[in-house]
């Protein structure tokens, strides 16, 4: 895929969605929406894993 097409996607689709996500995050004042940047204020950083889906081994997700 060409550099130009990917850059256009980056500026348009990715940009719009990123701005929406960032705005929602800012409104909610939820600093770790992406699991990043968290520091302090937590007792633990361990999280529970996703629950297993029956026959999940056949899926890529």
């Amino acid at each position, binding site marked *: 895929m060409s550099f130009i097409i990917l850059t256009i996607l980056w500026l348009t689709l990715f940009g719009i969605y990123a701005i929406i996500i960032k705005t929602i995050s800012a409104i909610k004042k939820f600093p770790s929406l992406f699991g990043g940047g968290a520091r302090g204020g937590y007792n633990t950083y*361990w999280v529970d*894993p996703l629950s297993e889906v029956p026959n999940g*081994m056949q899926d890529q997700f």
Partner: protein
Amino acid sequence: MNKPVYILGLSCYYHDSACVLIKDGEIIFAAQEERYTRKKQDDSFPNEAIKAAFEYAGITIEDISAIGFYEKPFIKFFDRILRTTFKVWPRGLMQYQYAMQDWMTKKLWIPQSIRKELGYKGDIFFIPHHESHAYSSFGVSGFDDATIVTVDGVGEWATATIGYGCAEVPSAKCQVPNSETWNLELGTSKPVPSVKILKEIHYPHSLGLLYSAITYYLGFKVNSAEYKVMGLAPYGEPKYLEKMRELIDVKEDGSFALNMKYFTYEHGLRMTGRAIEKLLGQPRRKPESDLEQFHKDIARSLQDLTEEVMMKIVTYAKKISPSDNLCLAGGVSLNCVANGKILRSGLFKNIYIQPASGDAGGALGVALAIWYKQFNGAKLQQMNHSYFGDEFSDDEIEKCLQNADVPFLKLSDEGLIDRASTLMEGDNVIGWFQGRMEYGPRALGNRSIIADARNKDNWKKVNLKIKFRESFRPFAPTVLEERIGDYFDLDRPTPFMLLVADVHPDKRDEIPAVTHVDGSARIQSINREQNERYYDLIKAFEEKTGCGVIINTSFNVRGEPIVRSPEDALNCFLNTHMDYLVLGNYLLTKRDMPEDKVLKKKDYLEQFELD
């Protein structure tokens, strides 16, 4: 007669591509692709390794019952990669460009690639990256139950996990000791191991990536040279430990979060930026420039921090999934200094770490997971050797030597052991090529360079004149299993060179070439069942000298994958200052080699990218 169940496990497209072939629950072949392509840490689809596996087993793709891939690509891409891209936008354009090219052309098409490359039509399975790691260790540990800890760079989201493995209780309720009911439900009379992941730490917070970031800061290659930082650490003092605590917030339960203002790997093509240079007080070291005391102190501080976090993680793991046994996996589990510390803490009676603990081991993990989860396969015995790769007969070796037109001597089995053990005394360095190639990053006696551990000069000679690598790098010893306690502060076998222990103070002068500057050693033990010829060699050396320890380092030069074939071994021998080469029953002497064939060092070394 029932058709045997062949399962092929694959890992690729990140680093350390590998394949593992299991037949009816027995590992029959395992190898990394880099050994065939001669490109270190090769991430390409492991076509050559698969070809070798099929050839070894005498099967075709039609015989394969299932293929497994060692992670879940859609979770990785649609969840982590895209979310991270949105998070860091508008930064990260170049990383996004590279990532998208990779994902759109290769990584999102795993089943298609498998079917296309192999002509395969059967079932393909996927399990999460860290579950692959967990199975790769617990699945061959031989334990009935174990606390499992996996720590690496990153999989889908997880960068570290705590889990529980059990071979006699349902995986969904690991604490219920009711194997009879469960076995009846599964329709099998044998216990089937299963793994349950209980806790995770998520990207971008990663102990593996922290280690890689500092590796990068110290001017070494990421995903490749982390072990150099570990080897450099004993030369330094932990002067920067307190400053490093600014990089990571560690809780008492071992969980941690990185302070991402110091790391750029989420959006950049580099691991660290100016912030970390400002914090630590010096710019990033340029690759190949001189190492100063500062760099050694940084390495030591990082190593101490890593050990501290690992200790907290395993302590918490023991609390939430208690067992006397610990299975470690993931790239950080190759940190044998930390492993040694965990062992000495006495938290666990037994520790198991399989030799391909990094991503190459994912291929083993997914193959085992399929065997246990899809086929209700019986528990494997403990894997206590790593000789699962190619092997070459004496006829093949002789043909190679004749084609190369080099003089050689063929010896009997007894004659070979006697001659090689005699030659090893003193300052000779020998390339030792025997039997099946090792699986994992360590050469454990079949693709090794060996020398006398009593001669301190051998350390320098092998580093500078044979491996052409940094002078600070230590060498590991191989010790006869029955003599571990005579030399080292260790009370158990360590067949995979994954534990570090102290050399007894009164023995340090006896084996100076394998005693690191802090008095420690990264030990490999050997018994005759694991590797008859290698054991006999060291035993013969011991009978002649009284010393049951030799130097063992991988048969390669810096940046080169470990040799696979007699041709690779011969090339390496001719282009370094190695004195002798033993290929099967054949002995080659450097001084007898034709002049036009030896030491085209520059051309040879240029083939390999420095790590």
